[in-house]
């Protein structure tokens, strides 16, 4: 079960002609999830900055 199905990197990337479909799906999927995390973290920082500014000015 834990022997890799692919003998070398080329085979892994090509996946018998299906590599373009498989890798593009994972690449785009991972990118979308990663961007969502970055956006969420950025939003928290922006809100906290706004509240701190409000706190300081009042």
């Amino acid at each position: 079960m834990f022997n890799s199905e692919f003998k070398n990197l080329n085979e892994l990337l090509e996946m018998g002609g299906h590599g373009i479909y498989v890798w593009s799906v994972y690449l785009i999927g991972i990118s979308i999830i990663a961007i969502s995390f970055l956006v969420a973290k950025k939003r928290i920082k922006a809100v906290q900055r706004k509240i701190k500014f409000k706190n300081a000015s009042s």
Partner: protein
Amino acid sequence: MLLLGWIWGLLFAPQDAVQGNSYRIIFLHVPSVIFAELIYFFMAVCALMHLVWRVKLAAYLIKSAAPIGAMITFIGLFSGSIWGIPTWGTWWQWDARITSTLILFIMYLGVLTLHGSFSNLEKADRLMSILVIIGVVNIPIIKKSVDWWSTLHQPASISVSGSSSIDPSMLYPLLISIIGLGFTLISLGILSSRSYILSREKNKKWVLMHV
């Protein structure tokens, strides 16, 4: 955990006898569509809590979960379309499962658009909750679409109650991917709801003291 499931599925799971290696998309596609439905169901429970018991936090959670639901539904639709090219010879078919999932994606966008179109946020919360509850009828339709209609999709390969028709060498990495994506989306949900709660409650004393 998600990476473990994907590495196992992409590198070590055996090739499918019929679909070849294209089936490896399953480790992203199936978890995505499972959570696309589960997030909407979670939103419907929150919508009920908001409408019946006037729980403010429930509306905040709906608003925070909807973009995540839209994102994961998009990934489910996109990965399914790409998978369809080598498997079915087409990237799109108006079959019951795909169409009902597209409706789910439109529902997520509709919920976000509706909420964004009101300046009175309490009214927006209420109307958004009503729309979420109306849209929940689509969830059993998605689930049962492969049984009720003749579709390109095969019936479910994994089952919570009965036995799964998928080989354990493919099932285990799939289950790990499902659990892994679940944890990933929960983390994203916590981050997203944190920023939304802070922005909605920014004038409250507890927020000013907390930040």
